[in-house]
């Protein structure tokens, strides 16, 4: 089995007023339970808004701390799930389910390095 990171990208700022957050959270939890039952779930978490992010970088031993987020743009990582799947098609199936629950948000599916090689 291979591990994949499913990243949820969402626009900055408060969610649209007509968004049914309760329903979405219920669906997200149901999907997480489905992943657990299938033995695919490894970890997942939701993040506070990107405006709460802080960037640390060290040059010549000096830590420079700046207000985040690290990347420019109007969309940032809002949360993520790590899953196990046999191959990319298996991972994309979970990605599709997550994207369905969170539509119209985009989900990025990205492989981890194989554990055996590290």
């Amino acid at each position, binding site marked *: 089995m291979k591990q994949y990171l499913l990243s949820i990208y969402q626009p900055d700022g408060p969610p649209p007023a007509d968004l049914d957050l309760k329903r979405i959270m219920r669906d997200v939890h149901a999907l997480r339970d489905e992943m657990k039952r299938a033995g695919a779930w490894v970890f997942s978490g939701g993040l506070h808004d990107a405006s709460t992010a802080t960037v640390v970088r060290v040059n010549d031993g000096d830590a420079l701390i700046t207000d985040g987020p690290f990347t420019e743009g109007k969309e940032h990582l809002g949360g993520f799930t790590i899953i196990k799947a046999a*191959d*990319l098609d298996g991972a*994309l199936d979970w990605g599709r389910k997550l994207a369905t629950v969170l539509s119209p948000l985009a989900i990025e599916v*990205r*492989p981890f390095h194989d554990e055996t090689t590290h």
Partner: protein
Amino acid sequence: MSAHDIERIFREEYGRAVAVLVRRFGDIDLAEEAVQDAFATAVQRWPADGVPPSPAGWLITTARNRIIDRLRREASRDDRHTEAALLHGGSLAELQEEAVDEEIGDERLRLIFTCCHPALALNAQVALTLRLLGGLTTEAIARAFLVPAATLAQRLVRAKGKIRDARIPYRVPQAGDLPARVRGVLAVIYLIFNEGYTASSGERLTRDDLCAEAIRLGHQLHELMPDEPEVMGLLALMLLIDARRAARVSTDGGLVRLVDQDRRQWNRAMIREGQALVRRCLARNEPGAYQIQAAINAVHSDATTAADTDWRQILTLYDHLMAVAPTPVAALNRAVAVAEIEGPHAALTIVNALDLDRYYLFHAIRADLLRRLGRSSEAVDAYDAAIERCENAAEREFLERRVTELR
């Protein structure tokens, strides 16, 4: 047995050999290198020894032995190739045994679906398909698409890296995913064909080698999936269109429209093959966009002169096409048939309602309708809009001729 003959055999068998070895060893680069090595050996031996009874079998066995030798040499090292081989089962001794015994299966279908996986960029799908299944060199593909060889090589490296690292599967998709995935494969082959049929940029109208390559891939896919009507439909469509190639280009390289073509120059054998495929796929009664477009082209192929064209039947087929796949481009082509039956005014009303401003043929067709309605100055404006958006020199020159005639 000349080097040219060996080259031809190599191109024909390359995909089959690579596919079998990728299946066995799980590594595209390893498979490609070994097949190329085997080919180099063939170039040395075949002219003297003669071509073996099964060239594909010879290439695969030789390449496989080459890989096993290499893995054996590297067995003591912690090498990813060895790992890959062991991942795919079996000890080296078992692999050696199998190299002699195993009957060679056809794994090309798996390879096609891997090359055309939607997780890969479309231009990477095209390059991989031409490289791995078509056996074209990186340089040849780069030339055909007018990109620097280094760019194309980089594209291939990146795509193969993603296949390996993201573990894009090497298999025929499950039934539920199959229709969408087959559509993806057909889109790649049709894109190759279209790029050959009207080069999207450059001086020459066509790049014949790409058309031939797309048709070869179409034949392969049809052989591997004989029951897929849309596979049959696309093959028929490409054959029927390409049959007109000789008549479509004038001696000075200019574009000749369907209506002006010398139909005696059409390739009758290709038309017969295309029409037979159209009859077979339509008989299955699972219509799809490629089949209907093939049927439309079959009707054109039936007419000995442009005036004999059965436009009513063509319009009926376009109505079917709009029911199955209602795209603006299909509506635009349907309008051309409407012009033949109801006249240019009715057609122009349809065309004007389409949102295709960026498509040069939209302006070219609109210009032609305006010209036929005697609205010359509007026609000139529309031709100018078409010329501005057209990137093929031969087509642009054709449009410029039309403008000159109107002025």
